[in-house]
């Protein structure tokens, strides 16, 4: 008799079940980066991961991307095992460092995932044009990365992540290196792009206002070992714009997330003491 696993809801973009990640197990450098983490992201959701440095946000994102294999537990993306989802290129990825290939023009950078997916040359050119329009850089396709500002580079990186129509976008502090003005501008653009393309997003950030402004849900994590301590529904409505940032409800949510973060650090300390 085979044990049948629970029926997987196909509408779930991401399902992390009891995932743990231990680095360098069995050596003095052992790090329990994640301990028994459960996370569900419904299709179409925008979910942010926030928490103190070293709490395992990037690690969790890498598990979803199948750049790392969990030491325990299970990760599913679009109802498939994470490894299969990666092979099917079910997600696009963007990092804090834009990670543009410096020997390729902006257009060629956007084109790379399509090239690797074996798209026809004409289709590729068409798609690159669309993506450049989407990120509002229609004339910069022939520029080399160093000829673009930090914000423009990041837009090209987002265009590249979205080029092959992935249903899921994984972002690790993509606006972390940008100045405040550019950052807020890019946040609004990201929301528009995701609404237009119906993309599910998992977004790692250090900024509470950024998490609140962008997300349907904010997942609060804490360190030692990394785990999820709280999940806050933001409920600011579907259409958000610069006015949203002025609203009382916005500030209310910021306070809520801040308190959840503080609380998670307190329990983190408390547990640290208990464990000894």
């Amino acid at each position, binding site marked *: 008799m085979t044990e049948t696993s629970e029926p997987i809801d196909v509408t779930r973009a991401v399902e992390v079940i009891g995932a743990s990640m231990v680095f360098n197990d069995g050596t003095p450098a052992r790090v329990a980066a994640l301990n028994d983490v459960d996370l569900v992201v419904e299709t179409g959701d925008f979910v942010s991961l926030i928490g103190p440095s070293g709490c395992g946000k990037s690690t969790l994102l*890498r598990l979803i991307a199948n*750049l790392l294999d969990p030491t325990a537990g299970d990760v599913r993306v679009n109802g498939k095992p994470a490894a299969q989802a*990666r092979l099917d290129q079910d*997600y*696009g990825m963007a990092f804090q460092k834009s990670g543009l*290939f410096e020997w*390729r023009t902006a257009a060629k950078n956007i084109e790379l995932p399509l090239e690797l997916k074996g798209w026809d040359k004409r289709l590729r050119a068409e798609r690159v044009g669309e993506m450049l329009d989407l990120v509002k850089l229609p004339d910069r396709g022939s520029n080399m990365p*160093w000829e673009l500002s930090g914000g423009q580079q990041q837009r090209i990186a987002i265009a590249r992540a979205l080029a092959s129509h992935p249903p899921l976008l994984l972002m690790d502090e993509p606006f972390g290196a940008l100045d405040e003005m550019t950052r807020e501008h890019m946040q609004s653009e990201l929301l528009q792009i995701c609404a237009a393309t119906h993309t599910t997003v998992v977004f790692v950030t250090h900024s509470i206002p950024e998490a609140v402004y962008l997300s349907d849900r904010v997942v609060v994590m804490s360190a030692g070992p990394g785990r999820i301590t709280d999940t806050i529904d933001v409920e600011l409505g579907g259409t958000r714009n610069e006015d949203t940032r002025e609203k009382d409800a916005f500030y209310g949510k910021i306070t809520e997330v801040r308190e959840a973060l503080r609380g998670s650090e307190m329990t983190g300390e408390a547990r640290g003491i208990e464990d000894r």
Partner: protein
Amino acid sequence: MTASGVVKRVGSPLLFGVAFLGVWELIVMAFDIAPFTLPAPSAIWSAFIERFDQVLEETLVTGKNALIGFLLGIVFGVLMSLLTVRFVGVESLLTPLAVAVNAIPIVVIVPILNNMLFGTTSQVPRRLMVMLIVFFVVFINVSKGLRQVSATHLELMRSYAATPWEILLKVRAPNAVGYLFTAMRIAAPLAVITAFVAEYFGGVQSGLATGVRNSLNGSKDVTWAYVIGASVLGLTFYLVSSGLERLHGGKQNSG
């Protein structure tokens, strides 16, 4: 670079060179030094003009050896580094081998090759020596370029489900191009020096070093005329290769 920049960069060394030659000439005149010991620059120059055809011929022989060895060394160095980075097993085999071979003062292999394999009528041993020297410089630098790729780039390629060959062609190889140009700049003067030194170890009676050696018994102005040929050859190799590197670097970083 601006025109005045060029004048500054080229002007001062040129001025220094002229002054140096002037002092040299004066010292030879003032102390009446015999041309057998140290010829004056003017004497060297007239010997150079007088024997221009001969000097040119020997320069071309040495230059051809250096160039052929240089190009072969680049081809084999690039191929070998591509192979080792693709098949990690080959690397663990080859790197110790490369270190071991590199530790042999390889110009001493020339007489062995001369006697055993090619006889004394062949330029091949000299070219092989140049090739070996250039090979190591290229192999070590290009391997570094193929390996030192950004972790973000590798993660991106993994997220695109790229195969090892695709990663090699689209990330590692482009990343190593700059390293190849650097290796060429380092290896070019070495190629000339090796081609020159290899002639000292016997073989065919042609080339710049042979010219130097055969003229040592007579008046030294002829010897120095060959030295002029050697300097011009080395400088040409260096200028061309560093020019190529600069051209490539300029394409990457300007704007």
